[in-house]
């Protein structure tokens, strides 16, 4: 089939967006499940969508991926990829005719009148596209669902009119901000496309890749709002394994330090709450209402004080304790400890030592944070000795990596 810039389903480019945006240098050979032509087409498509924001260069026959500083961006460039839905010629033609016929919200017309007026418009063309009543009715029903058109019954006849106008220019500042920080900010970007807007905001630590998951997140939020059982279909790109799970979505966990999103959901098969990577989910189907939704969510509330990041492992609390040295003139380190600890407590051991303590479901999740205190960790005590040993081994491995010899005590 000839290359077309637009796509029918967003899922088609989701994998590629991950591969190109996060890794950039993935070659055709890496993306195994796709054909050669498909790889070339999707690469061309994404380069066209994101022309200013990512690029590839060959240096010494190696592919080098270049990305730009998100801090300079007032708008998430990945939102643009959501403006790529394909359509048929009839759809775009009828769309503009319809909103010209119903140009004012006071105009009320029957189906027959809309068909007549549509034909009148098209009579200006030498070979007018034929529209029958049923095509127009179908399109009107689609627009009623979208909320663009409303239908009322007058004298037993369906009457159509555009929905009431809703001025949004006054929301410009809020749209500029929330379209970048809201989990479904892409919809804010649709609203911004409708108005004149400026670029007053910038965003630091701006992880934009969550936008790729917008459709999936939208369905998961719908499931939560409607308190429904849900079927999710997963594809793990590393193992190439496909799986599906029947779950009750409870809450989306978003990282402000990676942009990655996870779903915590009650899983009836295991009778517990489990974690699912949202970038692995490729299909969501809402099922019947779950009468115990509030009970499950309450359970999540009970356990979340022991979840450092995203992992809940039932009946498996582990104790984590580590002490760091903070000199009297280093109160900013104490402040750092206080603002970065998500759970647990800080105990002052003496004038220069502070101890963090918490009971968590997965000690592993704290390792990256604990390592940020390297240069001042004086003691660790984990009930999970394997993880404790790994932390110590990691520090030893870093000494080796940076060639820190045994003579440092002498230097100090």
């Amino acid at each position, binding site marked *: 089939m000839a290359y077309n810039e637009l796509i029918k389903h*967003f899922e088609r480019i989701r994998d590629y967006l991950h591969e190109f945006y*996060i*890794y*950039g*240098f993935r070659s055709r050979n890496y993306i195994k499940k796709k054909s050669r032509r498909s790889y070339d087409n999707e690469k061309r498509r994404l380069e066209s969508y994101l022309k200013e924001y990512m690029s590839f260069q060959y240096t010494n026959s190696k*592919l*080098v991926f270049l990305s730009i500083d998100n*801090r300079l961006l007032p708008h998430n460039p990945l939102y643009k990829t*959501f*403006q*790529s*839905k394909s*359509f048929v010629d009839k759809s*775009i*033609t009828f*769309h503009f005719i319809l909103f*010209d016929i119903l*140009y004012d919200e006071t105009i009320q017309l029957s189906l027959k009148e809309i068909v007549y007026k549509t034909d009148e418009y098209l009579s*200006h*063309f030498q070979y007018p596209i034929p529209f029958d009543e049923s095509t127009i009715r179908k399109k009107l029903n689609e627009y009623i*669902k979208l909320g*663009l058109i409303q239908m009322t019954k007058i004298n037993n006849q369906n009457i159509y009119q555009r929905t009431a106008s*809703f001025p949004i220019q006054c*929301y410009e*500042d809020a749209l500029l*901000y929330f379209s970048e*920080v809201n989990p*479904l900010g892409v*919809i804010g970007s649709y*609203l911004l*496309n409708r108005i004149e807007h*400026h670029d007053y*905001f*910038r965003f*630091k*630590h701006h*992880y*934009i890749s969550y936008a790729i998951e917008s459709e999936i997140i*939208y369905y998961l*939020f719908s499931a939560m709002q409607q308190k429904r059982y849900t079927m999710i279909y997963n594809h793990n790109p590393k193992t190439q394994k496909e799986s599906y799970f029947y779950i009750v979505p409870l*809450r989306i*966990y*978003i990282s402000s*330090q*990676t942009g990655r999103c996870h779903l915590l959901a009650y899983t009836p098969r295991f009778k517990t709450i489990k974690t699912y990577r949202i970038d692995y989910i490729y299909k969501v189907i809402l099922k019947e209402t779950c009468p115990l939704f509030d009970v499950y969510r309450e359970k999540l509330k009970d356990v*979340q004080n022991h*979840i450092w990041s*995203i992992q809940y492992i039932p009946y498996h609390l582990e104790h984590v304790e580590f002490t760091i*040295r903070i000199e009297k003139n280093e109160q900013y380190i104490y*402040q750092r400890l206080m603002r*970065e600890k*998500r759970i647990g407590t800080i105990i002052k051991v003496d004038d220069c030592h502070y101890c963090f303590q918490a009971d968590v479901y997965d000690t592993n999740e704290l390792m990256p944070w604990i*390592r940020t205190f*390297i240069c*001042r*960790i*004086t003691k660790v005590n984990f009930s999970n000795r394997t993880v404790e040993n790994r932390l110590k081994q990691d520090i030893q*491995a870093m000494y080796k990596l940076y060639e820190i010899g045994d003579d*440092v005590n002498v230097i*100090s």
Partner: protein
Amino acid sequence: MLFHEVYGCYYHCVGEMINLAIDNKLTNENMLSIIHQYAFEESHLHIIPSLNEKKWQIFDKPFHTPLQHHYSLPLTLLEKRWLKTISLDPKIKLFSLDFPDLDNIQPLFTQDDYVIYDQYQDGDPYDDDSYQEIFQLSLKAIRYKKAIKVHYLEKEMICIPYHIEYSLKDDKFRLYVIHQNKKKILNIHKIKSIELLNEYSQDISIFPPSKKYFVLNIYDERNALERVMTHFADLQKQAEQIDKNNYKVKIYYETQDETEMIIRVLSFGPLIKVIEPDSFVKQIKDRLIMQKVCNLK
């Protein structure tokens, strides 16, 4: 439906073209410039022929349409539900807005449906009335190009604000200003008072950030590559694969964020190694030497 053609850039372009055609202002040049502004790199190859060949029956003659009214589209239900959602967000107070027409609209989600689990705990005081006032005056000053007099950290200064930066991780807003021809970043919660002065007429030059870089070697074990690329996805970088499991990534950062970068690198432990510049490597080594002195057993 979130992915629908009515939100698409092709519809957007055609709407803009209709408006110009009705005003008798449509030309080849502005058709191309609309496509360049709102659509994708290759879109002109599809949009222009579709219109010219009357596959899309919008223009019956060159630059002329039988449509009679400027194009406008009501909000979709999805867009109204999103507005309802932000109207329930605690930070909406910063913008002092009313949403009178959304009473019967359901939000897409609420604060109970998601959590930003690793956000810092000492975010700005969004509920504070004087914080809200300072935030709004800052925005107003930027919008109307006004200089401001601020009382900041026991000092009073006159400056020109040009944008507001938000960090989701820090949960803080910062005001970027030009003061005595230099860029300054003010924490909005530390501004005691703000007064709007006269409009400034001259063009302000926004200083490019002063940048440094470091280069990492990644050996891809324990999923290190994915973790590093995801974690540093917010920054400008160049990445290349050296061989099967080895990767080299050059990361650019703003000079004032150096300590943060060192901390971020340390969080990966031995999975990555900074190889240049020497000054950055030295700071990592210094921390490791200090750690060794801690005698962790």
